[in-house]
């Protein structure tokens, strides 16, 4: 029966949050290998698009996965999806790397926001999944030109001027599009506490 086949052949995404949990609870190397194979090559692409050389992207991607192993216990699936958490790990490592490169004398802390979240909720797991869904839906429903400026924010060091130059639109337009997009993202999450 074709229906059954398509069911069999549709591979569900592995539960990456559960794999991070297995790393945290059981130092599970197979789980880590699966995470590495999925995320490291994507982190590498992400960083190269954000301006890193292939060598630096490779290094930060490895460092990101090393941090995933070491900080797996700090991953809270009730606060972020696996991909979102790994994005923030890679983002922070890239900032560290840029800082060490440009200002080796710096004394800024590595992570500006490592304080514990003090608002636990019984159903936070459902909330994070729903929040991510809503963000995805909100992004998907943005007009393409608004989604474009939001995405551009991830890939440029000098957001204002770069977006203006690369998308070839005036700065005022960049700002007003981003403002509209962020208003919609905010509205999508209005009733989230």
């Amino acid at each position, binding site marked *: 029966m074709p229906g059954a086949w398509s069911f069999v052949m549709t591979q569900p995404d592995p539960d990456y949050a559960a794999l991070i949990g297995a790393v945290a609870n059981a130092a599970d190397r197979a789980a880590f*290998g699966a995470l590495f*194979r999925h*995320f490291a*090559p*994507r982190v*590498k*692409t992400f960083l*190269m*698009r*954000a301006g890193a050389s*292939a060598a630096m*992207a*490779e290094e930060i991607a*490895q460092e990101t996965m*090393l941090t995933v*192993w*070491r900080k797996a216990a700090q991953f809270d699936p009730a606060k*972020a*999806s*696996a*991909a*979102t*958490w790994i994005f*923030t790990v890679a*983002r922070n490592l*890239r*900032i560290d790397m840029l*800082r060490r490169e440009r*200002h080796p*004398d*710096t*004394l*800024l*802390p590595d992570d*500006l*926001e490592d*304080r514990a979240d003090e608002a636990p909720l019984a159903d936070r797991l459902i909330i994070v999944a729903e*929040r*991510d869904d809503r*963000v*995805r839906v*909100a*992004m998907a429903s943005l007009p393409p030109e608004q989604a474009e400026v*939001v*995405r551009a*924010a*991830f890939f440029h060091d*000098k*957001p*204002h001027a770069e977006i203006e130059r690369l998308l070839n639109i005036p700065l005022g337009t*960049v*700002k007003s599009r*981003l*403002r509209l997009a*962020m*208003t919609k*993202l*905010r509205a999508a*999450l209005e009733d*989230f506490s």
Partner: protein
Amino acid sequence: MIQHHPSSVVLASYAAGSLPEPLGLVVATHLYGCAACQRLKTSVEAVGGSELEAMPPTAMADDALAAVFARLERPAAPLVPFERTPGLPPPLDRCRFDPWRRIGIGLRWRPLLGSGTMVAGLLEGMPGRALPTHAHRGLELTCVIAGSFVDAGTRFAPGDLAEIDGDHAHRPTIDGDTPCLCVFATESVRLSGWLGVAQRLLGE
């Protein structure tokens, strides 16, 4: 009650990881007390997660996984404990600053160490103190920690973030009857913002 927030552009850049760090420190100071911006930051991070998920893979080095496994065998470098700077809210309490420098009557500043080509630090002024009018270029962010100031008829109280971008002449004045303590960061080194004042007064 916080009234003034960073713009969408600044908040999105911060969450995306593309805002220069000293400016990010000012945003982080605001976020510490602003649940609304914290939520919006979280949603931009979720966009980052879905962007990451959507990236086409780039092959890692052949021995990458083995190299990471090998590094796991070695203990992590010990964390260097940082000294808290007393009297400041997080995340400023774990930053390092130079000693206070006087920059005129009733006005002093403490440069943030490691701010690179940016100029950033703490600024404290006594009540009634007006800063000289100055023209400003580039992005400048200021977050109030204590006390308040008024700029062009708008009042900034603790937690409020003042964002100035582009050409702008302003003259912030400290109001109320307590000293005003702020953290600020600015992009352009010359003739800009409060630091321009500091530079001129210091003859730097």
